[in-house]
């Protein structure tokens, strides 16, 4: 990854490249790098570009921390990518000048290569507008003092709204608004939001509540958490600035999920009707004093719902003491995700990090939290069930300091000072219901800076198989996989597409709830499905409807036939030779059963493995035979005998045929061979005249057929040789594939 400094006019200076390992966090000291590589830039301003090569576009998360040791300020600025589409849109914000000494900057940056004509509008709290044109050249950055602009416009009050709008290429515009007061030792970021006129509620309604919802996860309340190490007696004044970014009235409502040292609870906040472009200040401290929220509560999450479209209402939260010296912020966001990749947490004698994640959905969920450390090589994992609106609260310093074991019993090293983190929704891996937040507080100066994580989504959902091969009258499973650009992996997201499958031609194939396809006729068709996934777009994640499809080929069933002539029967073959009254062994091969039934036999097993279902097939056997030899007549003289015949329908019958439905293996057994006595008056019949010697050859043709598969035929032969004296010739008796001559 190569950091590049851009001047206000877009000229670039590259800094040294760095390589970042998986899950590793790396800090780059920009101040030191400027001093070494580009000292001419000291005292100027501009933007920072990060150019990187990675398999996944969202593999890199970056934040710029502007701070200086010994000075009580810290700004956290998330890196955002450019969206190179032609959409119109705006950046919406709130300005706030709490003291006369408060200074500010509004930074506008054009990330793209095309000049952006912009409208910069400022509003007072009642929505009165002052508008000016701004032209922002390619890669240019400019800055304004809102205080000066307000004065010039004749607007009054200590807060109001900001709108920077572009008629096109709004995705190239980035803005930042921050405050500082050197005399009060105060600094703050006032988060700005993208507002697109084409935003759809469906795409941002992650929890499917039919109302647009935005949350601030960590608003510090009047009674600050002792963990923040503010001086004793510090009282904060938590407040919200809620702004209508549209020219029509909108309704909004607030609710709170507060937590104290040993208690937590919910509270309903006020319902608001905001006039066009109005900005309303909500004094949360007054809600605490009025009993809406308990006074002892340290933190609350704030949930803002509106009756409008996404980003028509925006909000900023701030919580500072009267001097502005001590305080904290928490950003609003509507984003829920199945996975959040966090930036850097810090823990040392001067700093600590508190990280939270909550369930923004309507059903209980299992959340997983992972800390990565040792350059991303090691991890520490916690899991927790979260009810709707419930948050898991992680004090990283406490985990290290108190040696808290993770779910595997692992503890974090005592000297650990930084690392990265991740949250995952283990219940819904397609969209997810997790929101998150993090603060890093400076114990020396009492300054608390928030950080954000990056939501993860999917791109390019595709079917497991395209085309999907389906055996006729058989089944084939399939599903949907999608690319996760955070992890550079393809994940199984089939669950998001259940119950939405269909095929164009149901006479060829059908698909069930789980995408198991059944082939009904040989041919081709197309499968369609739809489902919602978190989609990772450049600046945010959306709940997006995807409609992957793919081809289906219903193929004739296949069959593989194997004959076994010697040894033992195969596993799964439950048939028995001894159910034949002529047989005397369960072994394969030549058998002398003359002492029990009078026959010399060859036992064999046929096994066919089919691609569909064993019960779909029929098996038929035909044979031709010829035998000749000598028998002894009533006077004990040797007499020749010979016979040839054929049997076009020789079974197999059910007692020796195994082909149950639901299985893919067909077995049948056969034991064939001559009787040890012949009928002198009919040499083709069994009789009482003892056979002295015989050579008996039987040729078999086995035919397997199903409704659509051409006949599959296998041939084999059995040759039984009995030496003079009625002794089975085990050497010359054979059986094998193919047929042999009957002319002997």
């Amino acid at each position: 990854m190569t950091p590049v400094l851009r001047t206000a006019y877009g000229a670039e200076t590259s800094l040294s490249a760095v390589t970042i390992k998986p899950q590793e966090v790396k800090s780059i000291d920009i101040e030191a790098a400027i001093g070494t590589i580009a000292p001419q830039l000291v005292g100027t301003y501009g933007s920072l570009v990060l150019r990187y090569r990675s398999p996944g576009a969202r593999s890199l998360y970056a934040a710029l921390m502007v701070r200086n040791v010994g000075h009580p300020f810290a700004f956290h600025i998330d890196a955002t990518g450019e969206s190179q589409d032609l959409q119109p849109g705006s950046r919406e914000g709130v300005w706030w000048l709490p003291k006369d000494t408060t200074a500010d900057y509004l930074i506008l940056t054009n990330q793209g290569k095309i000049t952006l004509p912009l409208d910069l509008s400022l509003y007072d709290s009642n929505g009165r507008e002052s508008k000016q044109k701004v032209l922002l050249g390619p890669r240019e950055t400019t800055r304004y003092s809102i205080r000066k602009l307000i004065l010039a416009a004749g607007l009054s009050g200590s807060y109001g709204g900001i709108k920077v709008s572009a008629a096109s290429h709004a995705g190239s515009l980035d803005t930042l608004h921050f405050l500082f007061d050197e005399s009060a030792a105060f600094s703050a970021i006032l988060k700005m939001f993208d507002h697109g006129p084409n935003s759809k509620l469906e795409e941002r309604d992650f929890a499917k509540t039919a109302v647009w919802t935005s949350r601030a996860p960590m608003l510090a309340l009047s009674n600050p958490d002792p963990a923040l190490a503010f001086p004793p007696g510090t009282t904060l004044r938590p407040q919200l600035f809620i702004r209508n970014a549209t020219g029509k009235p909108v309704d909004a409502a607030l609710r709170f999920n507060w937590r104290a040292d040993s208690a937590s609870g919910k509270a309903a906040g006020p319902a608001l009707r905001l006039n066009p472009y109005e900005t309303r200040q909500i004094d949360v401290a007054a809600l605490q004093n009025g009993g809406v929220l308990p006074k002892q509560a340290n933190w609350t999450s704030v949930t803002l719902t509106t009756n409008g479209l996404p980003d028509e209402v925006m909000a900023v939260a701030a919580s500072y003491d009267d001097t502005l010296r001590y305080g904290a912020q928490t950003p609003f966001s509507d984003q829920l995700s199945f996975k959040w990749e966090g930036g850097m947490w810090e823990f040392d004698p001067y700093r600590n990090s508190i990280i939270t994640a909550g369930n923004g959905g309507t059903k209980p969920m299992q959340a997983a939290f992972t800390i990565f450390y040792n350059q991303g090589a090691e991890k520490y994992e916690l899991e927790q069930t979260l009810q709707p609106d419930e948050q898991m609260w992680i004090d990283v310093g406490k985990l290290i300091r108190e040696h808290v074991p993770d779910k595997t019993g692992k503890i974090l090293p005592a000297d650990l000072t930084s690392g990265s983190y991740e949250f995952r929704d283990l219940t819904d891996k397609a969209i997810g219901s997790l929101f998150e937040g993090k603060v890093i507080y400076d114990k020396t100066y009492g300054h608390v800076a928030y950080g954000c994580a990056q939501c993860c989504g999917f791109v390019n959902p595709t079917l497991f198989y395209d085309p999907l091969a389906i055996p006729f009258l058989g089944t084939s499973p399939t599903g949907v996989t999608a690319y996760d650009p955070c992890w550079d992996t393809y994940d199984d997201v089939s669950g998001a597409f259940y119950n939405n499958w269909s095929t164009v031609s149901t006479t060829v194939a059908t698909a069930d709830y789980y995408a198991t396809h059944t082939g009904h006729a040989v041919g081709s068709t197309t499968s369609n499905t739809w489902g919602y996934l978190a989609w990772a777009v450049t600046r945010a994640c959306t709940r997006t409807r995807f409609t992957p499809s793919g081809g289906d080929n219903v193929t004739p069933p296949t069959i593989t036939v194997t004959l076994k002539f010697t040894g033992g029967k195969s596993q799964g073959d439950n048939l028995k030779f001894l159910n034949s009254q002529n047989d005397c062994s369960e072994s394969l091969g030549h058998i002398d059963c003359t002492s029990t039934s009078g026959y010399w036999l060859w036992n064999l097993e046929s096994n066919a493995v089919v691609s569909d279902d064993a019960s779909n097939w029929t098996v038929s056997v035909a044979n031709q035979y010829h035998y000749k030899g000598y028998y002894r007549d009533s006077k004990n003289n040797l007499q020749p005998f010979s016979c040839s015949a054929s049997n076009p329908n020789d079974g197999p019958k059910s007692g020796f045929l195994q082909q149950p439905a639901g299985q893919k293996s067909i077995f049948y057994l056969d034991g064939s061979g001559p009787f040890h006595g012949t009928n002198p008056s009919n040499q083709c019949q069994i009789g009482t005249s003892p056979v002295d010697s015989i050579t008996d050859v039987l040729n078999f043709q086995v035919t397997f057929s199903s409704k659509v598969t051409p006949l599959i035929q296998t041939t084999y032969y059995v040759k039984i040789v009995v030496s003079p004296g009625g002794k089975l010739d085990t050497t010359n008796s054979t059986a094998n594939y193919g047929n042999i001559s009957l002319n002997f």
Partner: protein
Amino acid sequence: MRRALYIAICLTLGTLGTNNPAQEPPDIHKLFAQLNELGTTDRAAIEILKAASEDTSARQYIVRKLPGMINKQKSEDEIWQNAVRLAGQLKASETIPPLLKALSLGPAGGPMNTTFGVQMRLDDDIVAKALSQIGDPAVPAVTNLLKSGERKARRRAVLILLNMDSAASRKVLQDQVQRETDPDLRDFIERSLHS
């Protein structure tokens, strides 16, 4: 010797025929005589089967004669074998007692080469096959065979009932599944019934 036997049979027929001589086709006597001649027995058997299927009295005449022929129990004799086969083909319930008696001769009249298909169809056991062809009238007699203590006898009865393939025979076999003491034979019956 054969000539003398033929005359004797003709005399016997003449005596029997006095009961209803006008209804008997004139050639059934001749066919019956030919059935009892080694040189003509196979062809006569075919002709008799045809005549009996077209003429009730011809059938009646023959089925009365068959028990006597079967009782001779000459398993290697072509004439005896034809009588047994005709008993089955004509579904002559009158022949059930002599056929049951003939079962004691063991499998007879089948091809010298066996396969499991041959056995299952009873092609190697013409007496058992005749009983299976007679069908339901033979079910009670064959059911008795299932009470035999010999597995071979029970198995033979099972095959007869399987080849009958009627509701009555299947019911007997289903009942036998509960009673059969030999696990392999029980499995064989179940497997065959579920085909």
